[in-house]
């Protein structure tokens, strides 16, 4: 059984004139346990929406998002929040670090909602990512590359089973992008977490074990409406 399986997932929105517009319609997508999968696609092809649906941040109009057999779409919002805190890690394109908090606190917050805040483990993870001397620095005191590492540490702090990464190297130059990718991929592998990574960058996608193109997967892109 796949760790993540998507079945007939549909998401659209209603225009002011009442017309329904489909933005995402994915008949099937699967990510195996510990697998690293790249997801490409044109701008506006619904990549971020798909990640939000998988994370339970958005609710689909229909279909299923099965995480280890549990359908997130039929769960209550509180359950989705719990599953997201305990089993998912999320690396955002612009990192979304909390500005008033230190690097260590940002990582700890990620752990707290999963109910297992451990200063030692958070410190160790940051040290592993080369941030040992920046634990108490605020995001604005860190370089973009360092912020990216804190974001990776936060996503992996709870030892999630699946890490979702939305253009995680989008703000980095090519050299740093490859370095960051190596870290993300390496730590996911160390922890046995699957990785579903959205990127435009072919060099990054080449690092993945498998690549999917959402422009092809998304039936809504082909003119089908919900």
């Amino acid at each position, binding site marked *: 059984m796949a760790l993540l399986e998507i079945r007939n997932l549909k998401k659209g929105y209603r225009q002011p004139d009442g017309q329904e517009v489909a933005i995402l319609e994915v008949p099937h997508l699967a990510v195996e346990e510990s697998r690293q999968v790249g997801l490409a696609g044109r701008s506006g092809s619904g990549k971020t*929406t798909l990640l*939000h649906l998988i*994370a339970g*941040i*958005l609710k689909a109009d229909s279909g299923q998002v099965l995480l280890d057999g549990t359908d997130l779409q039929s769960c209550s*919002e*509180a359950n989705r*929040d*719990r599953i*997201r*805190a*305990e089993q998912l890690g*999320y690396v*955002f*394109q*612009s990192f*979304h670090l*909390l*500005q*008033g*908090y230190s690097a260590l*606190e940002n990582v*700890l*917050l*990620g752990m*707290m*909602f*999963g109910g297992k*805040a451990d200063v030692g483990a958070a410190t160790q993870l940051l040290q592993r990512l080369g941030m040992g001397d920046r634990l108490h620095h605020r995001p604005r005191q860190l370089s973009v590359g360092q912020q990216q590492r804190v974001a990776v540490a*936060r996503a992996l702090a709870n030892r999630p089973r699946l890490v979702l990464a939305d253009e995680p190297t*989008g*703000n980095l130059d090519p050299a740093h992008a490859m370095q960051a990718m190596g870290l993300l991929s390496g730590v996911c592998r160390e922890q046995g977490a699957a990785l579903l990574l959205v990127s435009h960058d072919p060099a990054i996608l080449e690092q993945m074990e498998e690549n999917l193109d959402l422009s092809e997967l998304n039936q809504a892109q082909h003119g089908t409406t919900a």
Partner: protein
Amino acid sequence: MTRFLIVRRSLSQHAVSSVLTILALALGSGLVMALFNVNRQATRAFTGGNVGFDAVLGARGSDLQLVLNTVFHLETSPGNIPWDLYQQIRSDPRVELAIPYAVGDNYRGFRIVGTTPEIFTEFEYRQGQRMKTRSGQVFDPRYREAVIGSLVAERTGLKRGDKFSPYHGFQFQEDQRHAEEYVVVGILEPTGSPSDRVVWIPLEGIFRLGGHVLRGKNQEEEFRAKAGEEIPDEFKEVSAVMLKFRSPQAGIQLSRMINQQGTAATLAWPIGAVMAELFEKMGWMNKILEVVAYLVVLVAMLSVLISLYNTMNERRREFAILRALGARRGTVFSVIVLEAVTIAAMGSLVGVLVQSGILLASANLIQGRTGVVLSALAFHPALLWTPLAMMLLGALAGMVPAMKAYRTHVADNLSPTS
């Protein structure tokens, strides 16, 4: 722990508005606590009854004026009573102690009371406590000697051996200076009572101050005392006689005899009840002050609501990130409520200090005006229930912005910033 970390960070991120809101709450809560505390302490001090005397005998008129004038050394004297009335009450077997007071002069605003040395040897201002000199001794009634209260010494700088001239009237007026000079022979230890702001001189000294006219029993004839000349008893008069009874029944009997059957004098008895009546009459003023204080608290609470509500827009992304990390809507809601409660709690804590400050200032003022000492550290239940009520109100005020945070749309607020 998570919630406290978020609240702590939010407060430090919005330090200026947090501090201003906390100060507003501190002022409001401090005012409420101080109001209740000052009111209770003042009421107890003025109506507690334990002023050392049971009753005051004075000229026919208001018993409240009589008590204010003689016990608290405030107000003007309602008039004088003849010497024989003093002698009569003094020899009454129901009376344990009768000390005459003659007033009408001041030294730089501090009241001068002419009396007998019994005020130091017999009168107990509190159970078992007599006025004692901390330096010098009590006056000799034959000489122009004065014993001054501790507050008089502190405020006027008068020392033992210093000479001063009394001023006519209760209010200090430079041009009302008497020619006679008195020498300070003793300074009293602080008593925390109105006596601390009194200059005590011999009774006869008041009779003999230049310009004082004695009428005594026969109101039509005047007598002006000359140096060395004996003052006939029929011309002597006193402002009041301070009384201590042998039993409570004496108060009932003498009150009936003097107030209901007689017409010459007033017996203010019991002193605590007379003062309680005054405080009861002033109750409406306290109510208004209470309402004002509550309004200040309400306005301060509104400032909590507004200051938090104003930060909600800029914090939408923060809430969305927290939600994306797995925080539940309820967690975000409770964080904002907790933040409001924390602000209210901090405001109340600072409010306790503000309360002590107000109490200290009021205590100085009240001591200066009445001699009654209030404690800035005194406990009042308001010191407990005000912070609790503030936190409850804080929680209510926090619910409005918390609801806004609760409704934060996660996906909409996670769009890339760059």
